[in-house]
């Protein structure tokens, strides 16, 4: 909880920075703040019962803390990565503030206990992102991205709210624990519209985690937005969305899983196919990563689908989010540096192995991790999914997953081949990367490898 408060405070401080002229100090302050938040966050780890606030609207249980931990860590690295992005822009502080507020939303999503906070969390997280997506004022692409995100986002929230309303109507409460108990008490006498409500919620959440067929916004927004914002979306936002998804459906509606698992399976299948096959066709790396994030969403959904009632899925999901977030941070950091000259296509990477071996290596690791090759963390993430799925009746989904991840290897390798095999055609300038950014990229890469070699560090951590 304190973490949440600290971040909100940081947001406000950021806005004051303009007035009190300590712009330069802002980044260090923010970083310190995040570290502090992180520390406080984990102080609450060992408090036996989860303490709840605001009339039990928010409560940080282990699961919440874990996800917040991931989000904060990612955010920390993200800020270091983003420092020069802020400098090149006039109204820095607004961006700082916006990102921080988005963080607040994200943290709320990891720990909501009540539909209200769910809704608020989603909005607090999304609205700043709409702005950030469109933050390149002159760039029409950026504008379009923001606009699309906004329209479709709010359209989705409408469904979310409709769903919430229906569930409320059926159960007479917004509190997910009460909903759970109510549902399990009289599961026979639930009105039809309760079911509709759940479907609506499912739809809205699928939109947020960008699962097919509600993924259409993702590629466009990822491509249009400034690269670092894309990074933010595919890491922090996604993690938060999944935390919310997990909590809502595994805590709230586990009792009526038969109402939504079947649908979810279809969604997963669609996402797998659409994401991987379109990704295979992309020239723009950012767009490719967008589709890859969709396919990873599908994998994470499989975890939820696989074992609705057990905590194994929580562990697995946490591990997956961590692996994916760090992989993406590294990847996007490199993409950000490589595509500075505006060329976002794969051939921008040609001959990177010669132009900047370190970056090339890190990118290779990131790609292999996203492709799920040992000994990267991405492999263990996949492994968890497979182990989870093998026990379910959805074995066909598993086979589909195997095939599509083979397809996945196809487009990740394209980047590696470009870096190590193709030779830069036009200018063969070496790519200079700032020390701090290099540090971040190397660090995240290392983490990807380390938790890939010793997954125990994470996988055993959360006895939720």
């Amino acid at each position, binding site marked *: 909880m304190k973490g949440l408060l600290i971040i909100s405070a940081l947001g406000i401080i950021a806005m004051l920075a303009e007035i009190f002229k300590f712009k330069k100090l802002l980044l260090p302050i923010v970083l310190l703040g995040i570290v502090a938040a992180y520390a406080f966050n984990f102080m609450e780890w060992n408090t036996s019962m989860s303490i709840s606030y605001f009339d039990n609207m928010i409560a940080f249980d282990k699961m919440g803390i874990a996800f917040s931990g991931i989000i904060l860590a990612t955010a920390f690295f993200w800020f270091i990565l983003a420092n020069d992005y802020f400098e090149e822009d006039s109204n820095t502080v607004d961006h700082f503030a916006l990102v921080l507020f988005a963080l607040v939303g994200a943290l709320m999503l990891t720990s909501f206990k009540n539909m209200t906070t769910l809704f608020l969390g989603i909005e607090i997280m999304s609205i700043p992102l709409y702005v950030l997506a469109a933050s390149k004022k002159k760039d029409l692409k950026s504008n379009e991205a923001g606009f699309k995100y906004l329209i479709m986002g709010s359209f989705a929230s409408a469904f979310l709210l409709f769903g919430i309303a229906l569930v409320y109507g059926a159960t007479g409460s917004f509190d997910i624990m009460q909903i759970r108990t109510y549902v399990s008490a009289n599961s026979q006498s639930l009105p039809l519209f309760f079911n509709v409500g759940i479907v609506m919620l499912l739809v809205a959440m699928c939109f947020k985690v960008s699962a097919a067929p509600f993924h259409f916004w993702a590629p466009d927004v990822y491509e249009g937005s400034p690269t670092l914002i894309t990074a933010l979306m595919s890491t922090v936002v996604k993690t938060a969305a999944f935390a919310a998804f997990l909590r809502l459906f595994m805590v709230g509606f586990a009792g009526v899983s038969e109402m939504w698992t079947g649908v979810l399976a279809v969604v997963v299948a669609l996402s797998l196919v659409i994401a991987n096959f379109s990704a295979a066709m992309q020239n723009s790396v950012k767009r490719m990563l967008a589709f890859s994030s969709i396919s990873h969403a599908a994998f994470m959904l499989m975890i939820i689908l696989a074992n609705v009632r057990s905590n194994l899925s929580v562990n697995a999901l946490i591990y997956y989010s961590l692996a994916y977030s760090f992989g993406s941070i590294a990847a996007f950091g490199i993409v950000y540096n490589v595509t500075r000259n505006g060329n976002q296509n794969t051939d921008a990477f040609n001959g990177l*192995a010669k132009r900047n071996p370190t970056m090339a290596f890190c990118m290779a690791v990131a790609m*292999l991790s996203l492709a799920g*090759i*040992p*000994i990267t963390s991405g*492999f263990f993430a996949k*492994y968890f999914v*497979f*182990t989870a799925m*093998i*026990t379910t009746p959805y074995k066909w989904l*598993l*086979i589909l997953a*195997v*095939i599509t*991840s*083979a397809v996945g*290897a*196809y487009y990740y*390798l394209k980047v*590696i*081949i470009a870096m*190590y*095999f*193709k030779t830069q055609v036009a200018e063969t300038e070496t790519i200079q990367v700032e020390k701090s950014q290099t540090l971040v990229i190397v660090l995240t890469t290392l983490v990807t490898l380390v938790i890939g070699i*010793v*997954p*125990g560090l994470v*996988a*055993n951590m959360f006895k939720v």
Partner: protein
Amino acid sequence: MLTLLLITFPLLAALILFLAKSKTSKTIALALSVVEFIIALAAFGLYKHNPDACQLWFNVAWVQSLGIHFNVAINGMSLLMILLTTFLVPLIILSSFKNEYAKEYNFYGLIFVMQMALIGVFTANDGFLFYVFWELALIPIYFICLVWGGENRGAITFKFFVYTLFGSLFMLVGLIYLYNHTNVEGLKSWAINDLYTAGRSLTETQQSAVFWLIFIAFAIKMPIFPLHTWQPNTYVNAPTQGTMLLSGIMLKMGTFGVIKWLLPMVPLGLEKWGATAIGLSVVGIVYASCIAIVQKDYKRLIAYSSIAHVGLISAGILSANQQGIQGALMQMLAHGVSVIGLFLIADILLRHTGTRDVDKLGGIRSMNGNFALLFLIIILGAVALPLTNGFIGEFLLINGIYQFNAWAAAFAGLTVILGAVYMLRSYQNIMLGERKDSHIAFGSLASSDKWVLYIVVIVIIAFGVYPKPLNDIAEESVKQLMLNLK
């Protein structure tokens, strides 16, 4: 502990090379690889001839909560494979002394990473660990081919990678499926024996499913007809040393895998589908041999001949009897050595004459009789003439297949004839007769090449005349395995 050393030392060597970036990486690499071979010999020395298999255990928990252990040990089979690997890698490095590679320290480093992974595959006694090493072996060879390979390596290595990955993902599913059926005091376990018991407890249909899930991966790696089409192009386009690694050692991952990770797991599945798999292998033998006959590029010819050989090996293994499997082991060793020699010869031809086209070459024997002799002996090894290393394996293999089915054996035996056809034809075209292209000169061999060929030839003959030391290990370990198959 020694086992662990065997695995970690190459990693160390790789690091040394990566970091030192020395000008003399070649020699350093050679020295290190020899050290590794000595370690292997030490293991060979320590290895006690007692049938109840695994020795030199090293076992620590890796991911406790998932029952994953870093569990390596040496039994007869793995010992043989380790000896092969550690013996071939120095030869491979030595054979590269005449090739110039950009950033060679990376090249040799990757070779060592590869060696580490391979030894891991051969020693792993934990299903998960096995899979990890299995995938790990793919990455260095992928980069070796991608960075130092020939013309259109991009597309080809890519196909190779995706193809093999596709296979191994299915294997992962199969293994997980078995893992999921293990039950040790209510806990799941990745230990190989638990997987065995789990596999045996399955119904026939389940076992069949697992059989195919896992066999596909191995079949692609070997490769077995009709999953072989990645292989010739990859072999041709990879740098010679890469090809040697692929054919000399990596191919054995597949065959070894079938012996250790498939046969004892799913006896019923084998019973039901073994015949089909053998059928494919045997068809592959004749098919590949025929194709080898009409090859013009000598390297490609060897590639196809290697498909034929591995077809025989896998057929022998799947016939699941003492002779078949023991023959397979012996043939794996023999093939490893011979194929290194053959690919080096292909490389030498290219370096000296600028072509590998059998029709352009000719009359080299009159220019360098010594080379001709070495070449001939290696070929005789490849066509399994008695008193060469190839014969023992081939005899036992055909014997084993015969016990499974006489006609299969007869058909597989055609390799005896066809092998002679393509090997002698190509030899005659390349070496004998008058030289076709007058300006092709063929000087004396570089000493490094000479040494490799000498060693290979010596091994071919020595191993063919007196196979006992290795054969005994093979025999007893297979006997042990047969108990598991009952």
